[in-house]
């Protein structure tokens, strides 16, 4: 797996918590916006060195996106842990509210690519659409 960086990796997130993945591409959802596309769970080793990013809050899941967002998807932590890939959902101790899926295979590494596709398909099946439309981002409190 390509989670090469371990700094700031915290405890496991409880199973009953729902976490959110912001859509920074329109095609994280299917064209009819009726299902989640496996693409939403592709992790690249070159830019996700600590894991795949999610958030505890829907708005926070899209806040980092500079060019806007296309909604968000939600998935229960227990559903992620129940898969057979040894995935772990952990808190990021450096950034409150930031969550990481660890041990997800990388789509850009030839030896992990097939497993990455399988894992992405099974995660997408378990995810639901939290918002099919762009989420307005309120300013952060000063």
């Amino acid at each position, binding site marked *: 797996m390509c989670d090469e960086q371990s700094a700031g990796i915290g405890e496991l997130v409880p199973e009953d918590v729902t976490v959110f993945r912001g859509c*920074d*591409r*329109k*095609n994280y959802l299917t*064209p009819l916006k009726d299902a989640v596309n*496996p*693409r939403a769970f*592709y992790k*690249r080793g070159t830019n996700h060195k600590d894991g795949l990013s999610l958030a505890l809050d829907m708005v926070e899941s899209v806040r980092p996106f*500079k*060019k806007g967002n*296309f909604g968000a998807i939600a998935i229960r932590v227990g559903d992620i842990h129940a898969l057979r890939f040894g995935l772990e959902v952990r808190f990021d101790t450096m950034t409150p509210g930031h969550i990481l899926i660890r041990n997800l295979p990388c789509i*850009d590494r*030839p030896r992990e*690519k*097939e497993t990455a*596709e*399988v894992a992405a*398909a*099974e995660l997408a*099946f*378990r995810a639901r659409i939290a918002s099919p439309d762009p989420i307005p981002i309120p300013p952060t409190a000063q």
Partner: protein
Amino acid sequence: MNARPNSFRLEKPSSTISDPSVIDITVLNKIVDAISNADLYESEDEPRPHALLITKTAKALSGISVAKAEIAPFFGEINVTWKEGGIRVKATFGPDPALFSVYRERFEEGHVTQSHLEENANLDYLEASLQWLADPFVNV
């Protein structure tokens, strides 16, 4: 030569993308529409598919139906995905124009029950996979 409108000769290479001399303009337009869509990129910094890859992909897919396919850029790659029932076939072109792989899976009751990634794929493998998509009971 008796050619259908928008349909041209398809060459089948042994290990890499074909280089036929004609392109199905419908396929090319669909590819260009997808890779020109800023909403399909993570950011403005994400690498775009190379022009040579675009033409190679269009040539390779000329003669294959992309009417129901989803075409998307991905960090310099061109991904072409077909889905029907529980079957998904994904052709990945690039980012190096010589690279072509095909992934296919069967999805049943929440799990992938069958999958295979063919690195260094050829169009025969893609066509066989699309035949499997159309008829999952066919032996491919």
